[in-house]
């Protein structure tokens, strides 16, 4: 008989993965987290505020990181990806590839490397809206607080950071490594990515600079975002006098994402409050098919509906045209409740792009079944999915689901002993 392994592997260090890992560890199990980004926290690190409480995600993340810091049972690997899985429930062999960070454990987070770095890279954390140095801290709340070097962005032959670092933390010749883990069960929590808005040609994302997506809006509104939290037009940095939110940009659509992404209605209502906060006089329109503010979220919907200058238009935004002289955007839609065709001008348009599971592209390297949108429909003994790998859901629901996944993982390792 094989030795039974009591440890659990969690793939993905976003809010679902973190939760599954920490909750299991706090029952007393050893847990490994494998995360592809150079930091933990995933998508929620890029969110400005959660609906409906309008509280900052970093608050909960800090608590989770503290739980990791004080619990030696949790070990994590960043810039890491699972390459293969073999074995069965209770005894999986997992190969993990660790991509080079070019910065070793000596890094103190002092920032000298970034200070001297002459090269720049598009800041993917802010969806390319600004730049960082090639030596960079992924974001201010990054955990672990370790710098990263984007080798692709480095200038040829430059070694300024190596010279500046007093702690020999930079290894420009760092190579990818592979590592083997033996675990008893696996939680797959690789989450989601925003649907590619360029596929919605009629909305002009990518062609019209002032058409942005809801995830970009989070960065524009965030104090640690590219504009320091000031919501302005990308084309010219001007203040907003009018803005529109376009719901179901990709979701509930046979040509794109078949399912409803379940969070976008609340996200747009929330983002409308961001705009209200900064521009009390701005005109705000939300184009929708159905407003899906389920359960107690209805309260938030009612609250936002009652705010001044917010108009909800029942009718999917049909297309967006740009006035290239002013950068303004015209949304054409059927205003169904008023039985009219509506053509309204806005300074900026936010597309409520939906969720696409990461597993739609990168499948679990094991026998799993997927639904038509790529969400994991069913796992295999010892491997279960958690959070938005399973269904489109908001943070509270994903956390609840990840907590459930922690129990399933425990059952797998316990059941084997």
């Amino acid at each position, binding site marked *: 008989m094989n030795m039974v392994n009591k440890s659990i592997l969690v793939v993905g260090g976003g809010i679902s993965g973190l939760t599954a890992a920490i909750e299991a560890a706090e029952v007393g199990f050893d847990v490994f987290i494998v995360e592809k980004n150079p930091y933990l926290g995933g998508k929620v690190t890029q969110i400005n505020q959660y609906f409906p409480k309008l509280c900052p995600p970093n608050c909960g993340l800090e608590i989770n990181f503290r739980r990791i810091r004080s619990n030696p049972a949790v070990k994590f690997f960043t810039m890491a990806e699972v390459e293969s899985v073999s074995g069965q429930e209770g005894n999986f062999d997992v190969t993990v590839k660790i991509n080079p960070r070019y910065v070793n454990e000596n890094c103190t987070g002092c920032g000298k490397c970034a200070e001297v770095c002459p090269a720049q890279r598009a800041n993917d954390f802010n969806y390319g809206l600004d730049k960082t140095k090639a030596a960079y801290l992924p974001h201010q709340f990054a955990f672990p607080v370790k710098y990263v070097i984007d080798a692709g962005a480095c200038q040829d032959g430059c070694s300024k950071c190596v010279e500046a670092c007093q702690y020999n933390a930079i290894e420009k010749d760092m190579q990818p490594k592979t590592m083997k883990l033996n675990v008893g069960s696996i939680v797959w929590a690789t989450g989601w990515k925003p649907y590619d808005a360029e*596929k919605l*040609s*009629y909305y002009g994302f990518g*062609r019209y600079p002032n058409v942005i997506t809801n995830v970009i809006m989070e960065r524009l509104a965030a104090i640690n975002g590219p504009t320091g939290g000031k919501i302005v037009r990308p084309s010219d940095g001007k203040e907003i006098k009018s803005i529109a939110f376009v719901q179901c940009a990709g979701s509930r659509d046979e*040509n794109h994402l078949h399912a409803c992404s379940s969070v976008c209605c609340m996200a747009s209502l929330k983002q409308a409050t961001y705009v209200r906060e900064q521009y009390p006089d701005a005109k705000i329109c939300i184009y929708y098919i159905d407003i899906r503010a389920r359960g107690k979220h209805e309260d938030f919907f009612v609250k936002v509906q009652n705010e001044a200058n917010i108009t909800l238009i029942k009718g999917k935004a049909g297309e967006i*045209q740009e006035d290239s002289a002013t950068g303004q955007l015209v949304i054409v839609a059927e205003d169904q409740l008023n039985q009219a065709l509506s053509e309204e001008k806005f300074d900026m348009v936010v597309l409520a792009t939906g969720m696409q599971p990461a597993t739609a592209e990168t499948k679990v390297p094991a026998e799993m079944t997927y639904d038509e949108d790529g969400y994991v429909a069913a796992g295999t003994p010892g491997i279960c999915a958690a959070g938005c790998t399973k269904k489109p859901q908001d943070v509270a629901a994903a956390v609840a689901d990840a907590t459930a996944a922690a129990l399933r993982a425990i059952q797998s390792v316990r059941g084997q002993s």
Partner: protein
Amino acid sequence: MKYSFYPGCSMEATAVPYLKSFEAVAHALGIELKEIPDWNCCGATVASGVIGDYPAQVMTSRNLALAEPHGADIVVPCSSCYMNLAITNRKFKEDGHFRQMADEALASVGMKYGGSLNVRQIIDVMVNDVGLDTIKSKVKKPLTGLRVAGYVGCQTPRVFPWEFDDPEQPVFFDKIIEALGATPVKFPVKARCCGSSHSVAQPEITADSCYNIITSAQDDQAHLIAAVCPMCQLNLDAYQDLVKERHKLKTSMPVLFFTQLMAIAMDLPPDAWALKHNIVSPFTALAKFGVGK
């Protein structure tokens, strides 16, 4: 490169310049065309509205059956013909129920279509089979400085969205224009409707649609419009007087089939340009490329 060629009804009539220029260009590019023997009308946008989709598709499938023995993919210049042939062909490949029914119908006239062919739009063939590099290499007289509004029209990119291009903001046609040395202008309406067959029953609809297209091209300082579809070209070209009258439009906008531009850029003999067929005179716009009557 061998193809079965489905010219469609208009190629023999209103779109003569298309046929002439295309055949010449194809020859120069090493494309071997074999016209489908005894082909019949695809039904255009109309037959389905009188007899229904399925009977119209069965009628169209006769062309596929006639082409199959030649064993080469079918190239189609007209967008409606392309739509009908391509959709019918796709149904043969993917819709078991359809295929079963259509097989039965074809059998009633002693025909059979095995579903072995692909139906290809002319732009698809130019970009993906011939290749932009080959086109570039054949260009002798680059159309440098010529600003072209590439009008793809409605059906071509939308029959199978994203299969070879963006259904609303297609890019391949602009790439062909670029390969000829010309400059494609922004032209946001490049895939909007030209008014189609409303030109007969309610010509003002066509005129209004064409007005949008022509002014958009003018806004972007295009010297001329290049078209892919015979119907589009005819509406834009022949109805331009009506457009001018209805909308007080002053300047004219020449409308060429893109194959005519290719023929010029590849420096084929003027016969291949077939410019005398164009109703709005293209000669001023093309004067600096040595194109004269």
